[in-house]
């Protein structure tokens, strides 16, 4: 192996390491989104020496013991949040359907199913409100000047 080739290899290694370093998430949110995108829910990841789950708060909530009270509370919270999204004219299309299915599950006494569906609806409503708030600040970025 000649010297020039060695230098080339070392340089490539340095560039690779630099890129890996640059890709390291800087914030918890970045770390969460990266791991969620790569592994989906139910995965544990380490960030800054601490262990976290890739589950959304709603998904963690839905993993608690399934009772009528809990299912009703989760459904109500999701309905209230989606109502807020509707008032902002930012509600998402599938959320109402999830809420309807959750109500049906509750009526059928399927509390776990109700909680899972309510968790999905709550997450969608939360994201749509976040979208509305983001737009409030950033919609002008797309306007041609």
């Amino acid at each position, binding site marked *: 192996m000649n010297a020039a080739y060695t230098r080339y290899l070392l340089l490539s290694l340095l560039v690779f390491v630099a890129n890996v370093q640059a890709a390291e998430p800087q914030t918890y949110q970045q770390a969460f989104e990266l791991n969620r995108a790569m592994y989906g829910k139910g995965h544990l990841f380490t960030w800054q020496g601490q262990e976290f789950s890739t589950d959304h708060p709603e998904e963690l909530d839905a993993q608690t013991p399934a009772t009528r009270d809990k299912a009703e509370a989760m459904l109500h919270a999701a309905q209230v949040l989606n109502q807020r999204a509707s008032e902002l004219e930012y509600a*998402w*299309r599938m959320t109402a359907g999830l809420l309807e299915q959750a109500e049906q599950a509750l009526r059928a006494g399927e509390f776990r199913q109700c909680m899972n569906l309510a968790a999905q609806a709550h997450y969608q409503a939360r*994201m749509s409100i976040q979208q509305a708030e983001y737009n409030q600040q950033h919609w002008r970025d*797309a306007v041609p000047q």
Partner: protein
Amino acid sequence: MLNFRKVKPFQGWITVALLLCATTSVLADASEPLIDPEADRQALRAYYLKRFPGVDIQDYINGIYALDAASREQWQALEEFPPYEFDLEAGEALFNTPFANGQTYAACFPNGGVSIRQHYPYWNAAEGRVKTLELEINECREKNGEQPYPWKKGPLAQISAYMAWTSRGQVFDIKVPADDAGALAAYAAGKRFFYAKRGQLNLSCANCHLEGSNIFIRADLPGPALGQTTHFPVYRSKWGELGTLHRRYEGCHRDTRSDPLPPQSDAFRNLEYFQTYMSNGLPVNGPGARK
């Protein structure tokens, strides 16, 4: 008051810098609420002139057919026997048929309802809202003791198509009165709707119809924002019938996986106000035929 003689040079520079920052920030905040529809229209035109330099601005009334030669060829073949022809005939008959009380649509509109499409939508200061042509057609019906038509298709779209037909070639001249805060707010709301991302797919109107103009989204080529409202109502091959602009708005909104707003909602009327103002200077060419 600051006494610059008492501060050391370095401190002085810091003070000047802080004052400059404060002034710039105030100016930036003050400029935010400025609403200048004409500047927006010119900027949109400039965007398309730069993006598609060979395309005549007037040709944007033809939507995607102004930009894609293959689609244009198919469309021109379709227009040899326009699919909206029967709807035009039906619209004319409906328009001229008196209501049960003997009154007609013509009595509800300026110039007997002929050749007026280019002035819609408009800001109605007395009512404090944007009025669309379809809204006023249904208001005319209700005023004369008739039931309003459904907003998206059928007789309402046919009457609107006939009224657009009588206005063909007239140049859009939408007004946003600079001294009317309500009109400016409605215009700004429409503009914000156009550029704000919505729905689970996080898409704005602009994503597809500005940046996405003439760029494939799966098998479809989205049309340009400029001239987008001039040819409505349209006979869409996908629908297999005539439909109104708000039917299309509802469909687009749904396609972003938003819970779609209803036709003739404030938001959609404001959007139409903004979009049609962007087409000022272009001629009416409705009804149109689209894929």
